[in-house]
């Protein structure tokens, strides 16, 4: 029988934090890749290319993340008769969630670029994708960095919901430890402190980047 001292609890929670970090990174990278494609579709001049991305973004921004996790974990497994592990389900759900928000953030930065930039690029005889790559994206990326970093905080916090489908990360392990030790006050305080240490630096960074951008 393991004895639960304060150091013991903290150590176990820190071990579980690894999976929170890994899942956040996967969700952010996966969501970034899918979100970039979505954003390209969303700003396309062609209506039927735009439409699917609009529906996608509307659905994943308009429904709770917890529902999306349930839909993937329970729903997909009965619909396609495949058993998804908690890892796979959490990866899929968090990627789709992240991509919908990132696509919208990035679309916002691209639309903030003055129309004249597109026109000038076109006047130089660049193709659509070259206009985007050489002229528009470099400016838009700079503008979108603060809000992208800010959204990373939402992703880290979002991974805590993966605990509801049995993914063992910080929140899940805090719940289990609190069940064993009967010290929920202590355990959830430590878990909250760990999350704070992950998220607060990102929030500060986002705020600092934003300020620098304003003064430029």
């Amino acid at each position, binding site marked *: 029988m393991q004895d639960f001292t304060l150091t013991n609890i903290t150590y176990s929670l820190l071990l579980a934090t690894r999976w929170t970090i890994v899942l956040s990174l996967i969700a952010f990278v996966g969501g970034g890749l899918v979100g970039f494609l979505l954003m390209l579709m969303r700003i396309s001049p062609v209506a039927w290319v735009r439409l699917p991305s609009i529906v996608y973004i509307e659905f994943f921004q*308009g429904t*709770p993340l917890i*529902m999306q996790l349930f*839909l993937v974990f*329970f729903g997909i497994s*009965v619909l396609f008769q495949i058993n998804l592990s908690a890892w796979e389900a959490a990866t899929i759900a968090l990627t789709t969630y992240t991509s919908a928000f990132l696509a919208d953030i990035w679309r916002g930065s691209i639309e903030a670029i003055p129309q004249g930039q597109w026109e000038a690029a076109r006047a130089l005889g660049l193709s659509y994708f070259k206009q985007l790559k050489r002229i528009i994206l470099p400016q838009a990326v700079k503008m979108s960095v603060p809000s992208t970093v800010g959204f990373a905080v939402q992703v880290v916090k979002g991974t805590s919901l993966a605990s509801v489908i049995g993914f063992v990360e910080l929140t899940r392990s805090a719940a289990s430890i609190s069940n064993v030790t009967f010290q*929920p*006050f202590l355990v*959830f305080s430590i878990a909250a402190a760990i999350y704070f240490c992950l998220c*607060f630096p990102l929030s500060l960074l986002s705020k600092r980047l934003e300020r620098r951008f304003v003064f430029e």
Partner: protein
Amino acid sequence: MGYTPNYSVIFNNLGFFIQGAIATLQLAMTSIFLGLLLGILGALGRTSGNRILNGIAVAYVEFFRNTPFLIQLFFFYFGFSSVGLRMTAWQAAVLALAINFGAYSTEIVRAGIEGIGKGQVEAGLALGLKKMQIFRRIILVPALGNIYPALVSQIVIAILFTSVVSQVSAEELTFVGSYLQSRTFRSFEIYFFISLLYLVMVWIVKLVAYLVQRRFFGFMRYVR
């Protein structure tokens, strides 16, 4: 072997779903109202110029914005009851949602307060407007109009976040879904239908918000 979705589970339990949706809306409205009060208090603290009040407000905002809502909920429900402060799941849910919404709305309201131009007030004085007119037409309405879009998107997020309180068995829409799912195993149909219900609720809120904006703050498009 393929799976054939069977939507009779939806029609047979329609009353349940509607009850759940109403409970979700009640939960959202109560906690958003209380949260907004907290947010106004927080914003007054942030802009008071008093270092202690400002410090308290900053700590409040940063703590609740940088920790997951689920942890906050567990903390209120399990943590507080372990030190003798017992709450029902519903009370803990309202408390956690209100405090969380309060943290986000503090920053939104603060931006509104700080966005009021001093020059505008002086211009109003120069035009010979009465004090009440200045407060209403130059300070209050434009400030509300400025924070309105951010507030609406935060309200939408708050509605979606009420789903998390199903994890402490507060009985709202998501809880209804999990309950029916455990009895019928029609997980895809149930969760998909509930997702659509949330989507419809969000759309209604956005539509009302748009109409309100056009009616009350429509003139602000010309100001900019």
